[in-house]
């Protein structure tokens, strides 16, 4: 790993979001949707509680839709335009490139998340929330976004077509969220052994995100997201190695 190269790749990729309207469209839509879900779906005011639970609880569903839109271009665009040949013949390792691109997308998502700071100000103005819990919520949301991005990045390396990358990433993300959802688990609970059900639900982003967003920063949940990210990024590097020239 060469930190400097990772930084250069990340910087280029991050600036790339702002070279086209993509970044601005995404940021505006993201803020509209988080606002909408917080106030109308999550009933921020009606609940009368000084926390940001309505804001965070819908993040998994927002991410399913929006994260693939960020991750889809990461590699499929490089493959389609042929610039991957340029990138992969520069003196950098494949993993440095994968990590640099991932970090750029993650930083961009982080920026989108940070732009929700007026909500934090609002809730602090209206009441006296536990800011530790809110911080945990942001951390959990960011980690979960990282997980979705790693999945999307790997999938975008599989295809040259950004639309395919988007749809496949969306489905894969859905699987990772739904596996912790009551309805899906009920489907298994009638016949599957409880060990399997636990295994399925423990693979869900929801299970781990819920705990963190409620303010419980458990090492195991952090480790879960860290390992999801690493596993998908390693798979991403392997896919690039195998398919870069196709």
């Amino acid at each position, binding site marked *: 790993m060469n930190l400097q190269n990772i930084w*250069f790749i990340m910087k280029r990729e991050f600036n790339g979001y702002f070279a086209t309207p993509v970044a601005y469209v995404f940021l505006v839509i993201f803020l509209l949707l988080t606002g909408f879900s917080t106030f109308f779906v999550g009933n921020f005011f009606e609940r009368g509680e000084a926390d940001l639970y309505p804001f965070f609880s819908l993040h998994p569903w927002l991410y399913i839709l929006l994260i693939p839109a960020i991750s889809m271009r990461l590699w499929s665009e490089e493959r389609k335009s042929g610039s991957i040949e340029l990138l992969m013949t520069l*003196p*950098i390792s494949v993993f440095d490139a994968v990590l640099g691109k991932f970090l750029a997308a993650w930083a961009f998502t982080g920026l989108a998340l940070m732009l929700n700071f007026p909500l934090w100000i609002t809730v602090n103005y209206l009441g006296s929330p536990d800011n530790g819990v809110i911080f945990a919520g942001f951390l959990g949301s960011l980690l979960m976004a990282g997980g979705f991005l790693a999945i999307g990045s790997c999938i975008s390396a599989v295809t040259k077509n950004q639309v395919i990358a988007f749809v496949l990433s969306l489905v894969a993300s859905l699987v990772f969220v739904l596996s912790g959802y009551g309805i899906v688990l009920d489907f298994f609970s009638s016949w599957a052994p409880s060990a399997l059900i636990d295994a399925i639900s423990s693979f869900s982003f929801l299970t781990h995100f819920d705990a963190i967003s409620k303010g419980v920063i458990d090492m195991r949940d952090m480790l879960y997201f860290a390992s999801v990210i690493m596993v998908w990024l390693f798979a991403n590097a392997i896919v690039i190695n195998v398919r870069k020239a196709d």
Partner: protein
Amino acid sequence: MTLRIEIKDLAKHFGAIKAVDGVSFSVNKGEVLGFLGPNGAGKSTTMKMITGFLTPTRGTVSVCGHDVLTDPIAVKASLGYLPEGAPAYADMTPHSFLKFIADIRGLSGAEKTRAVDSAAERAQIKNVMFQPIETLSKGYKRRVGLAQAILHNPPVLILDEPTDGLDPNQKHEVRNLINDMAEDKAIIISTHILEEVHALCTRNVVIANGKVQFNGTPHELEAMSRYHNAVCVAVDNADADKFTAFLNDLEFVGEVELLAAERGFRVYPTSGQQITAELSQTIRANGWNIDSLYAENGRLDEVFRTITTNSTQGGI
């Protein structure tokens, strides 16, 4: 160190297709190796293996003493590469693109500014430095790719069709640029523009069906032409039949061909030797008046066709 690139028994198979099948050659410092061959002959595939983009099925590549399989980063650091079609990041400007390449190449500060400046200057893209690459013409895009390849002044340059899509003036400039750099670098350029054989190359490798069909100087390549050293001659006071008979009787003449539209005769030597002086003396001594007389160098397009189509019959 003069040996810069050494390729031994290089092969790349895509399933049953043998894109490159046992290619060996080497390039020294100061050489410009012209890599010729029809489309699909394996030129680009070979270049992709030299630059570490593709992993060979078999064989070895070493660049500046580094093996591409065991030390790919060192190989990539020591070469500049213009991939086929000159891909770049379309939404960047040449300026930010070259700065990014300079970063990755380990240049910083004043050195970086100077490298970007000089590469832009030599590739003649200074006037478009702040326009998005996607808005540039094909010729400019190619030259942005070229600037990117020469930016860090690498000891080895691999250029895949560097003059493709350029107009004649731009081609001329790019050739001058390559010639200027040739002295202290080892350069491989692929092309199917045969005039570049003379304009650029000190040596040629012709490849067809994944195999090397020829490896030698441009002069040796021409010498393979049946027109090599043939002399075209026209005389003004001659009866064609008589003159043909006269030429056929000469001991150094192998064959005589009557050119169309009374443009004269083409006289082939018996075994490729130079016969111009001897022929002109003999003709004059026998009382014919020479209208015009010139020797041919050999036709590269004919040699190219012969070399590359003969191998097709033996191949797939």
